Protein backbone atom coordinates (compact mmCIF):
# COMPACT_ATOMS: atom_id res chain seq x y z
CA UNK A 1 0.00 0.00 0.00
CA UNK A 2 1.73 3.12 -1.24
CA UNK A 3 -0.97 5.51 -0.04
CA UNK A 4 -0.12 7.16 3.28
CA UNK A 5 -2.98 9.65 3.44
CA UNK A 6 -6.30 9.28 1.66
CA UNK A 7 -8.70 12.23 1.64
CA UNK A 8 -12.23 11.40 0.49
CA UNK A 9 -14.79 14.06 -0.37
CA UNK A 10 -13.50 16.25 2.47
CA UNK A 11 -15.48 19.40 3.20
CA UNK A 12 -14.99 21.97 5.93
CA UNK A 13 -17.45 24.79 6.39
CA UNK A 14 -16.70 27.37 9.06
CA UNK A 15 -19.18 29.70 10.70
CA UNK A 16 -21.13 32.02 8.43
CA UNK A 17 -21.03 29.34 5.71
CA UNK A 18 -17.41 30.05 4.78
CA UNK A 19 -16.28 27.03 2.77
CA UNK A 20 -12.62 26.28 3.50
CA UNK A 21 -12.46 22.85 1.83
CA UNK A 22 -14.87 21.87 -0.88
CA UNK A 23 -15.33 18.12 -1.45
CA UNK A 24 -11.60 17.55 -1.68
CA UNK A 25 -10.13 14.25 -2.84
CA UNK A 26 -6.44 13.61 -2.46
CA UNK A 27 -3.96 10.78 -2.09
CA UNK A 28 -0.58 11.41 -0.48
CA UNK A 29 1.95 8.67 -1.26
CA UNK A 30 4.83 7.42 0.88
CA UNK A 31 8.44 8.42 0.47
CA UNK A 32 8.01 11.88 -1.06
CA UNK A 33 8.66 15.49 -0.17
CA UNK A 34 5.53 17.32 -1.21
CA UNK A 35 4.86 21.04 -1.33
CA UNK A 36 1.35 22.13 -0.37
CA UNK A 37 1.04 25.43 -2.17
CA UNK A 38 -1.68 28.00 -2.51
CA UNK A 39 -2.50 31.63 -1.81
CA UNK A 40 -3.69 32.87 1.60
CA UNK A 41 -7.07 31.43 2.56
CA UNK A 42 -6.88 28.63 -0.01
CA UNK A 43 -7.41 25.93 2.64
CA UNK A 44 -3.85 24.66 3.24
CA UNK A 45 -3.86 25.10 7.01
CA UNK A 46 -7.44 23.81 7.29
CA UNK A 47 -6.42 20.61 5.48
CA UNK A 48 -3.37 20.22 7.73
CA UNK A 49 -5.42 20.79 10.89
CA UNK A 50 -7.98 18.23 9.77
CA UNK A 51 -5.26 15.64 9.13
CA UNK A 52 -3.97 16.31 12.66
CA UNK A 53 -7.40 16.06 14.25
CA UNK A 54 -7.41 19.70 15.38
CA UNK A 55 -10.62 20.46 13.49
CA UNK A 56 -13.76 18.45 12.86
CA UNK A 57 -14.71 17.83 9.22
CA UNK A 58 -18.14 18.91 8.07
CA UNK A 59 -18.27 16.06 5.56
CA UNK A 60 -16.01 13.36 4.16
CA UNK A 61 -13.14 11.47 5.73
CA UNK A 62 -9.38 11.33 6.12
CA UNK A 63 -7.46 8.10 6.52
CA UNK A 64 -3.85 8.16 7.68
CA UNK A 65 -2.21 4.78 7.38
CA UNK A 66 -5.73 3.39 7.17
CA UNK A 67 -7.08 4.99 10.33
CA UNK A 68 -9.01 8.18 10.99
CA UNK A 69 -7.28 10.99 12.92
CA UNK A 70 -6.89 9.73 16.49
CA UNK A 71 -4.26 8.36 18.87
CA UNK A 72 -3.09 5.80 16.30
CA UNK A 73 -2.58 8.32 13.48
CA UNK A 74 -1.02 10.85 15.86
CA UNK A 75 1.64 8.34 16.82
CA UNK A 76 2.92 8.29 13.24
CA UNK A 77 2.43 11.96 12.26
CA UNK A 78 4.96 14.59 13.31
CA UNK A 79 3.44 18.04 12.99
CA UNK A 80 5.01 21.48 13.06
CA UNK A 81 2.32 24.18 13.31
CA UNK A 82 2.83 27.69 11.98
CA UNK A 83 2.93 29.07 15.54
CA UNK A 84 4.95 28.66 18.72
CA UNK A 85 3.06 26.00 20.60
CA UNK A 86 5.26 24.78 23.44
CA UNK A 87 4.70 26.02 26.98
CA UNK A 88 7.01 28.96 27.52
CA UNK A 89 7.81 27.95 31.08
CA UNK A 90 9.34 24.64 29.98
CA UNK A 91 13.03 23.93 29.72
CA UNK A 92 14.29 22.31 26.52
CA UNK A 93 15.45 19.30 28.57
CA UNK A 94 11.89 18.95 29.91
CA UNK A 95 10.57 19.06 26.36
CA UNK A 96 12.93 16.26 25.38
CA UNK A 97 11.75 14.13 28.28
CA UNK A 98 8.11 14.97 27.38
CA UNK A 99 8.59 13.89 23.74
CA UNK A 100 10.52 10.77 24.80
CA UNK A 101 7.64 9.74 27.06
CA UNK A 102 4.86 10.25 24.53
CA UNK A 103 6.37 9.45 21.13
CA UNK A 104 7.90 6.01 20.76
CA UNK A 105 9.62 7.18 17.57
CA UNK A 106 11.32 10.18 19.20
CA UNK A 107 15.13 10.02 19.18
CA UNK A 108 16.45 12.20 22.04
CA UNK A 109 20.09 11.74 21.02
CA UNK A 110 19.28 13.18 17.59
CA UNK A 111 17.53 16.18 19.16
CA UNK A 112 20.46 16.76 21.52
CA UNK A 113 22.94 16.61 18.66
CA UNK A 114 20.99 19.13 16.58
CA UNK A 115 20.59 21.45 19.58
CA UNK A 116 24.30 21.26 20.25
CA UNK A 117 25.08 21.99 16.57
CA UNK A 118 23.06 25.17 16.86
CA UNK A 119 24.55 26.11 20.22
CA UNK A 120 21.19 25.93 22.02
CA UNK A 121 21.51 24.89 25.67
CA UNK A 122 19.20 22.17 26.91
CA UNK A 123 18.84 23.96 30.25
CA UNK A 124 17.42 27.08 28.61
CA UNK A 125 13.79 27.88 29.23
CA UNK A 126 11.76 28.58 26.09
CA UNK A 127 10.68 31.99 27.37
CA UNK A 128 14.32 33.11 27.36
CA UNK A 129 14.76 32.28 23.65
CA UNK A 130 14.15 34.52 20.65
CA UNK A 131 11.24 33.74 18.31
CA UNK A 132 13.63 32.40 15.67
CA UNK A 133 15.40 30.11 18.16
CA UNK A 134 12.06 28.85 19.47
CA UNK A 135 11.08 27.96 15.92
CA UNK A 136 14.36 26.10 15.47
CA UNK A 137 13.75 24.18 18.71
CA UNK A 138 10.27 23.26 17.50
CA UNK A 139 11.61 22.03 14.18
CA UNK A 140 14.33 20.02 15.92
CA UNK A 141 11.75 18.32 18.16
CA UNK A 142 9.49 17.53 15.22
CA UNK A 143 12.30 16.26 12.98
CA UNK A 144 13.82 14.16 15.77
CA UNK A 145 10.97 11.73 15.41
CA UNK A 146 11.09 8.80 13.03
CA UNK A 147 7.57 9.49 11.86
CA UNK A 148 5.85 8.22 8.75
CA UNK A 149 4.41 11.60 7.90
CA UNK A 150 5.94 15.00 8.70
CA UNK A 151 3.61 17.94 8.26
CA UNK A 152 5.40 21.27 8.31
CA UNK A 153 3.20 24.35 8.17
CA UNK A 154 5.25 27.38 7.07
CA UNK A 155 8.52 26.06 8.55
CA UNK A 156 10.70 28.77 7.02
CA UNK A 157 8.40 31.77 7.10
CA UNK A 158 9.77 33.64 10.09
CA UNK A 159 13.50 32.92 9.89
CA UNK A 160 16.51 34.48 8.19
CA UNK A 161 17.96 32.99 4.95
CA UNK A 162 20.84 31.27 6.77
CA UNK A 163 18.40 29.58 9.14
CA UNK A 164 16.24 28.61 6.15
CA UNK A 165 19.16 26.67 4.69
CA UNK A 166 19.72 24.97 8.03
CA UNK A 167 16.03 24.06 8.30
CA UNK A 168 15.91 22.61 4.79
CA UNK A 169 19.10 20.68 5.45
CA UNK A 170 17.56 19.37 8.68
CA UNK A 171 14.41 18.26 6.88
CA UNK A 172 16.28 16.45 4.13
CA UNK A 173 18.82 14.78 6.37
CA UNK A 174 16.37 13.62 9.04
CA UNK A 175 13.46 12.03 7.25
CA UNK A 176 13.68 8.40 6.28
CA UNK A 177 13.15 7.18 2.74
CA UNK A 178 9.76 5.64 3.44
CA UNK A 179 8.37 8.71 5.16
CA UNK A 180 6.61 11.60 3.49
CA UNK A 181 7.17 15.26 4.22
CA UNK A 182 4.31 17.64 3.48
CA UNK A 183 5.46 21.26 3.51
CA UNK A 184 3.06 24.15 3.31
CA UNK A 185 4.69 27.45 2.35
CA UNK A 186 4.57 30.61 0.32
CA UNK A 187 8.33 30.69 -0.16
CA UNK A 188 8.37 28.31 -3.09
CA UNK A 189 11.72 29.30 -4.59
CA UNK A 190 13.47 28.43 -1.31
CA UNK A 191 12.08 24.91 -1.09
CA UNK A 192 11.59 24.05 -4.74
CA UNK A 193 14.94 22.27 -4.96
CA UNK A 194 13.95 19.72 -2.29
CA UNK A 195 10.42 18.94 -3.52
CA UNK A 196 9.38 15.76 -5.36
CA UNK A 197 5.75 16.75 -5.87
CA UNK A 198 3.53 19.77 -5.47
CA UNK A 199 -0.13 20.23 -4.67
CA UNK A 200 -1.76 23.51 -5.70
CA UNK A 201 -4.87 24.45 -3.72
CA UNK A 202 -7.35 27.19 -4.51
CA UNK A 203 -10.66 27.89 -2.78
CA UNK A 204 -10.54 24.59 -0.95
CA UNK A 205 -10.10 22.50 -4.08
CA UNK A 206 -7.10 20.71 -5.55
CA UNK A 207 -6.02 22.56 -8.65
CA UNK A 208 -3.02 20.44 -9.45
CA UNK A 209 -1.12 17.48 -7.99
CA UNK A 210 1.95 16.64 -10.04
CA UNK A 211 5.66 15.92 -9.80
CA UNK A 212 8.09 18.81 -9.94
CA UNK A 213 9.84 17.10 -12.83
CA UNK A 214 6.63 16.96 -14.87
CA UNK A 215 5.88 20.63 -14.26
CA UNK A 216 9.36 21.62 -15.38
CA UNK A 217 9.17 19.40 -18.47
CA UNK A 218 5.61 20.11 -19.56
CA UNK A 219 5.37 23.79 -18.62
CA UNK A 220 8.99 24.63 -19.30
CA UNK A 221 9.29 26.67 -16.11
CA UNK A 222 10.05 26.38 -12.45
CA UNK A 223 7.35 25.58 -9.91
CA UNK A 224 7.74 29.10 -8.52
CA UNK A 225 7.17 30.66 -11.95
CA UNK A 226 4.26 28.35 -12.68
CA UNK A 227 2.69 29.12 -9.31
CA UNK A 228 2.91 32.85 -10.05
CA UNK A 229 1.24 32.26 -13.42
CA UNK A 230 -1.58 30.11 -12.04
CA UNK A 231 -2.31 32.32 -9.05
CA UNK A 232 -1.73 35.69 -10.74
CA UNK A 233 -4.03 38.34 -9.29
Amino acid at each position, binding site marked *: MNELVVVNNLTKVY*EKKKIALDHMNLIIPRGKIIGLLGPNGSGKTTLI*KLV*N*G*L*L*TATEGEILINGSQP*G*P*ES*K*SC*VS*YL*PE*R*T*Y*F*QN*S*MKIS*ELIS*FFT*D*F*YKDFRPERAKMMLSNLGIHEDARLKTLSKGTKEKVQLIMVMSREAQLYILDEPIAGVDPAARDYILKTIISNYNENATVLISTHLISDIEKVLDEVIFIRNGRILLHDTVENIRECKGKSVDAYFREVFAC
Partner: protein
Amino acid sequence: MLGKLLKHEWKAVWKVPMLLIGILMIMAMVAGFTFVLPVWDSEWVGLPLSGVMLIMLFYFTIIAVSIGITIYFAVRYYKNMFTDEGYLTHTLPVSARQLLLNKVITMSAWNLIAIVAVGLSLLLFGGITLWALMPKDSSFAREVIESFAEAIEGWPEALSSPYMKGFTGFCISLLLMVLSGSFSGTMMIVGSINLGQMVRKHRILGSIGAYFAINAVIQMFNMMVMMPVMFGVENSVSRWEGDMSPFPMFTRFYMIMTVITLAAAVGLYFMSEYLLRRQLELE
Protein backbone atom coordinates in the same frame (compact mmCIF):
# COMPACT_ATOMS: atom_id res chain seq x y z
CA MET B 1 -0.57 6.95 28.63
CA LEU B 2 -2.82 8.40 31.34
CA GLY B 3 -0.07 7.75 33.87
CA LYS B 4 2.43 9.70 31.75
CA LEU B 5 -0.02 12.54 31.27
CA LEU B 6 -0.60 12.71 35.03
CA LYS B 7 3.14 12.65 35.73
CA HIS B 8 3.86 15.59 33.40
CA GLU B 9 0.77 17.50 34.47
CA TRP B 10 1.65 17.16 38.16
CA LYS B 11 5.23 18.23 37.48
CA ALA B 12 4.04 21.29 35.58
CA VAL B 13 1.42 22.51 38.04
CA TRP B 14 2.55 21.89 41.60
CA LYS B 15 4.60 25.07 42.07
CA VAL B 16 1.85 27.70 41.83
CA PRO B 17 -0.73 26.09 44.17
CA MET B 18 2.02 25.12 46.63
CA LEU B 19 3.22 28.74 46.65
CA LEU B 20 -0.34 29.91 47.36
CA ILE B 21 -0.73 27.33 50.13
CA GLY B 22 2.64 28.42 51.53
CA ILE B 23 1.40 32.03 51.65
CA LEU B 24 -1.76 30.82 53.41
CA MET B 25 0.26 29.01 56.08
CA ILE B 26 2.50 32.04 56.61
CA MET B 27 -0.59 34.25 57.01
CA ALA B 28 -2.05 31.74 59.50
CA MET B 29 1.16 31.97 61.55
CA VAL B 30 1.31 35.76 61.30
CA ALA B 31 -2.32 36.04 62.40
CA GLY B 32 -1.71 33.61 65.29
CA PHE B 33 1.45 35.39 66.42
CA THR B 34 -0.41 38.71 66.71
CA PHE B 35 -1.55 37.36 70.11
CA VAL B 36 2.07 37.30 71.28
CA LEU B 37 2.47 41.00 70.49
CA PRO B 38 1.64 43.51 73.21
CA VAL B 39 -0.80 45.30 70.95
CA TRP B 40 -4.05 44.12 72.52
CA ASP B 41 -3.57 45.99 75.80
CA SER B 42 -2.52 49.23 74.15
CA GLU B 43 -4.58 52.31 74.94
CA TRP B 44 -4.13 53.58 71.39
CA VAL B 45 -6.88 51.99 69.31
CA GLY B 46 -4.63 51.73 66.24
CA LEU B 47 -2.55 48.88 67.68
CA PRO B 48 -5.32 46.39 68.56
CA LEU B 49 -6.99 47.42 65.30
CA SER B 50 -3.87 46.45 63.35
CA GLY B 51 -3.98 43.04 65.09
CA VAL B 52 -7.60 42.62 64.04
CA MET B 53 -6.62 43.67 60.52
CA LEU B 54 -3.95 40.96 60.39
CA ILE B 55 -6.46 38.32 61.47
CA MET B 56 -8.89 39.66 58.85
CA LEU B 57 -6.10 39.46 56.30
CA PHE B 58 -5.71 35.77 57.11
CA TYR B 59 -9.42 35.33 56.52
CA PHE B 60 -9.18 37.08 53.14
CA THR B 61 -6.10 35.01 52.26
CA ILE B 62 -8.18 31.84 52.74
CA ILE B 63 -10.70 33.16 50.21
CA ALA B 64 -8.00 34.47 47.85
CA VAL B 65 -6.04 31.20 47.89
CA SER B 66 -9.16 29.10 47.24
CA ILE B 67 -10.21 31.33 44.35
CA GLY B 68 -6.60 31.70 43.13
CA ILE B 69 -6.11 27.93 42.82
CA THR B 70 -9.42 27.57 40.97
CA ILE B 71 -8.57 30.40 38.55
CA TYR B 72 -5.04 29.07 38.00
CA PHE B 73 -6.36 25.66 36.95
CA ALA B 74 -9.17 27.15 34.84
CA VAL B 75 -6.71 29.35 32.92
CA ARG B 76 -4.28 26.44 32.54
CA TYR B 77 -7.04 24.17 31.22
CA TYR B 78 -8.13 26.79 28.69
CA LYS B 79 -4.55 27.50 27.55
CA ASN B 80 -3.55 23.83 27.33
CA MET B 81 -6.62 22.77 25.43
CA PHE B 82 -7.76 25.67 23.28
CA THR B 83 -4.93 28.10 22.58
CA ASP B 84 -1.57 27.59 20.82
CA GLU B 85 -0.58 25.03 23.47
CA GLY B 86 -3.53 22.94 22.28
CA TYR B 87 -1.53 22.18 19.12
CA LEU B 88 0.74 20.04 21.26
CA THR B 89 -1.95 18.71 23.61
CA HIS B 90 -4.21 17.49 20.81
CA THR B 91 -1.45 15.99 18.67
CA LEU B 92 -0.24 13.69 21.45
CA PRO B 93 -1.03 10.03 20.69
CA VAL B 94 -3.67 9.86 23.42
CA SER B 95 -7.47 9.79 23.37
CA ALA B 96 -9.75 12.70 24.25
CA ARG B 97 -10.86 10.69 27.29
CA GLN B 98 -7.28 10.39 28.57
CA LEU B 99 -6.67 14.11 28.03
CA LEU B 100 -9.82 15.00 29.93
CA LEU B 101 -9.30 12.48 32.74
CA ASN B 102 -5.78 13.79 33.25
CA LYS B 103 -7.05 17.33 33.75
CA VAL B 104 -10.06 16.33 35.86
CA ILE B 105 -8.05 14.08 38.19
CA THR B 106 -5.33 16.70 38.70
CA MET B 107 -7.77 19.56 39.26
CA SER B 108 -9.96 17.53 41.63
CA ALA B 109 -6.92 16.42 43.62
CA TRP B 110 -5.73 20.02 43.98
CA ASN B 111 -9.24 21.11 45.00
CA LEU B 112 -9.07 18.54 47.79
CA ILE B 113 -5.53 19.58 48.76
CA ALA B 114 -6.74 23.19 48.95
CA ILE B 115 -9.62 22.20 51.27
CA VAL B 116 -7.24 20.24 53.51
CA ALA B 117 -4.76 23.15 53.44
CA VAL B 118 -7.46 25.61 54.56
CA GLY B 119 -8.36 23.24 57.41
CA LEU B 120 -4.70 22.92 58.41
CA SER B 121 -4.20 26.68 58.29
CA LEU B 122 -7.14 27.13 60.67
CA LEU B 123 -5.66 24.51 63.01
CA LEU B 124 -2.29 26.26 62.78
CA PHE B 125 -3.89 29.60 63.57
CA GLY B 126 -5.83 28.09 66.50
CA GLY B 127 -2.77 26.25 67.84
CA ILE B 128 -0.51 29.30 67.71
CA THR B 129 -3.22 31.47 69.25
CA LEU B 130 -3.60 29.02 72.13
CA TRP B 131 0.17 28.82 72.60
CA ALA B 132 0.44 32.62 72.51
CA LEU B 133 -2.34 33.11 75.03
CA MET B 134 -1.00 30.56 77.51
CA PRO B 135 1.56 32.82 79.26
CA LYS B 136 -0.90 35.72 79.34
CA ASP B 137 -3.97 33.88 80.58
CA SER B 138 -2.96 30.39 81.59
CA SER B 139 -6.35 29.56 83.10
CA PHE B 140 -8.13 30.20 79.77
CA ALA B 141 -5.68 28.11 77.79
CA ARG B 142 -5.79 25.35 80.41
CA GLU B 143 -9.59 25.38 80.30
CA VAL B 144 -9.56 24.98 76.51
CA ILE B 145 -7.10 22.09 76.68
CA GLU B 146 -9.03 20.42 79.49
CA SER B 147 -12.29 20.76 77.57
CA PHE B 148 -10.66 19.06 74.58
CA ALA B 149 -9.37 16.26 76.78
CA GLU B 150 -12.79 15.81 78.37
CA ALA B 151 -14.50 15.78 75.00
CA ILE B 152 -12.15 13.07 73.72
CA GLU B 153 -12.54 11.03 76.90
CA GLY B 154 -16.32 11.25 76.92
CA TRP B 155 -16.64 10.67 73.20
CA PRO B 156 -17.75 6.98 73.22
CA GLU B 157 -20.40 7.74 75.81
CA ALA B 158 -21.61 10.84 73.96
CA LEU B 159 -21.94 8.85 70.75
CA SER B 160 -24.39 6.45 72.35
CA SER B 161 -26.68 9.24 73.55
CA PRO B 162 -29.98 9.77 71.63
CA TYR B 163 -29.13 13.30 70.50
CA MET B 164 -26.00 12.01 68.75
CA LYS B 165 -27.92 9.35 66.83
CA GLY B 166 -26.76 9.14 63.21
CA PHE B 167 -23.54 11.06 63.82
CA THR B 168 -21.39 8.53 61.96
CA GLY B 169 -23.70 8.70 58.95
CA PHE B 170 -23.53 12.48 59.13
CA CYS B 171 -19.71 12.38 59.08
CA ILE B 172 -19.72 10.02 56.11
CA SER B 173 -22.20 12.23 54.22
CA LEU B 174 -20.05 15.26 54.98
CA LEU B 175 -16.95 13.49 53.71
CA LEU B 176 -18.77 12.35 50.59
CA MET B 177 -19.97 15.89 49.98
CA VAL B 178 -16.42 17.28 50.23
CA LEU B 179 -15.05 14.57 47.94
CA SER B 180 -17.80 14.93 45.34
CA GLY B 181 -17.55 18.71 45.69
CA SER B 182 -13.92 18.59 44.55
CA PHE B 183 -14.96 16.67 41.45
CA SER B 184 -18.12 18.66 40.73
CA GLY B 185 -16.29 21.98 41.24
CA THR B 186 -13.74 20.85 38.68
CA MET B 187 -16.40 19.74 36.23
CA MET B 188 -18.22 23.07 36.54
CA ILE B 189 -15.03 24.80 35.33
CA VAL B 190 -14.08 22.21 32.71
CA GLY B 191 -17.64 21.85 31.40
CA SER B 192 -18.09 25.64 31.15
CA ILE B 193 -14.83 26.10 29.24
CA ASN B 194 -15.66 23.27 26.84
CA LEU B 195 -19.17 24.58 26.28
CA GLY B 196 -17.80 28.12 25.83
CA GLN B 197 -15.76 26.90 22.85
CA MET B 198 -18.99 26.51 20.91
CA VAL B 199 -19.21 30.32 20.82
CA ARG B 200 -16.39 30.39 18.26
CA LYS B 201 -15.80 34.13 18.12
CA HIS B 202 -16.03 34.83 21.86
CA ARG B 203 -14.73 31.71 23.53
CA ILE B 204 -13.77 33.22 26.91
CA LEU B 205 -17.00 35.16 27.19
CA GLY B 206 -18.85 32.01 26.18
CA SER B 207 -17.11 30.05 28.94
CA ILE B 208 -18.00 32.63 31.60
CA GLY B 209 -21.60 32.73 30.37
CA ALA B 210 -21.74 28.92 30.37
CA TYR B 211 -20.44 28.84 33.96
CA PHE B 212 -23.24 31.06 35.23
CA ALA B 213 -25.85 29.26 33.13
CA ILE B 214 -24.79 25.80 34.38
CA ASN B 215 -24.70 27.11 37.94
CA ALA B 216 -28.19 28.57 37.61
CA VAL B 217 -29.59 25.30 36.21
CA ILE B 218 -28.02 23.24 39.04
CA GLN B 219 -29.29 25.68 41.67
CA MET B 220 -32.76 25.59 40.21
CA PHE B 221 -32.76 21.81 40.18
CA ASN B 222 -31.39 21.78 43.72
CA MET B 223 -34.22 24.03 44.85
CA MET B 224 -36.87 21.89 43.16
CA VAL B 225 -35.58 18.74 44.84
CA MET B 226 -34.94 20.40 48.20
CA MET B 227 -38.38 21.97 48.47
CA PRO B 228 -40.23 18.80 49.58
CA VAL B 229 -37.32 17.93 51.88
CA MET B 230 -37.55 21.37 53.49
CA PHE B 231 -41.25 20.84 54.16
CA GLY B 232 -40.37 17.53 55.80
CA VAL B 233 -37.80 19.29 57.98
CA GLU B 234 -40.32 21.91 58.99
CA ASN B 235 -42.70 19.16 60.14
CA SER B 236 -39.91 17.47 62.10
CA VAL B 237 -38.97 20.75 63.79
CA SER B 238 -42.57 21.35 64.82
CA ARG B 239 -42.57 17.90 66.46
CA TRP B 240 -39.12 18.48 67.98
CA GLU B 241 -38.27 16.80 71.25
CA GLY B 242 -35.24 17.48 73.38
CA ASP B 243 -33.59 14.11 72.93
CA MET B 244 -33.94 14.02 69.14
CA SER B 245 -30.76 14.01 67.07
CA PRO B 246 -30.41 16.62 64.32
CA PHE B 247 -27.83 14.56 62.42
CA PRO B 248 -30.13 12.31 60.33
CA MET B 249 -31.76 15.46 58.95
CA PHE B 250 -28.41 16.99 57.96
CA THR B 251 -27.29 13.66 56.54
CA ARG B 252 -30.36 13.58 54.29
CA PHE B 253 -29.64 17.18 53.19
CA TYR B 254 -26.02 16.49 52.38
CA MET B 255 -26.73 13.23 50.60
CA ILE B 256 -29.33 14.85 48.35
CA MET B 257 -26.97 17.72 47.54
CA THR B 258 -24.15 15.26 46.87
CA VAL B 259 -26.28 13.18 44.51
CA ILE B 260 -27.46 16.25 42.58
CA THR B 261 -24.02 17.83 42.16
CA LEU B 262 -22.46 14.45 41.37
CA ALA B 263 -25.08 13.74 38.70
CA ALA B 264 -24.51 17.20 37.19
CA ALA B 265 -20.73 16.65 37.26
CA VAL B 266 -21.00 13.27 35.55
CA GLY B 267 -23.26 14.83 32.91
CA LEU B 268 -20.75 17.64 32.38
CA TYR B 269 -17.94 15.10 32.10
CA PHE B 270 -19.62 13.18 29.28
CA MET B 271 -20.60 16.41 27.53
CA SER B 272 -16.98 17.59 27.74
CA GLU B 273 -15.65 14.33 26.37
CA TYR B 274 -18.11 14.48 23.48
CA LEU B 275 -17.18 18.10 22.68
CA LEU B 276 -13.45 17.31 22.75
CA ARG B 277 -13.89 14.26 20.55
CA ARG B 278 -16.45 15.51 18.07
CA GLN B 279 -16.48 19.30 18.14
CA LEU B 280 -12.84 20.33 18.56
CA GLU B 281 -12.03 23.48 16.58
CA LEU B 282 -8.65 25.00 17.35
CA GLU B 283 -8.17 28.53 16.09
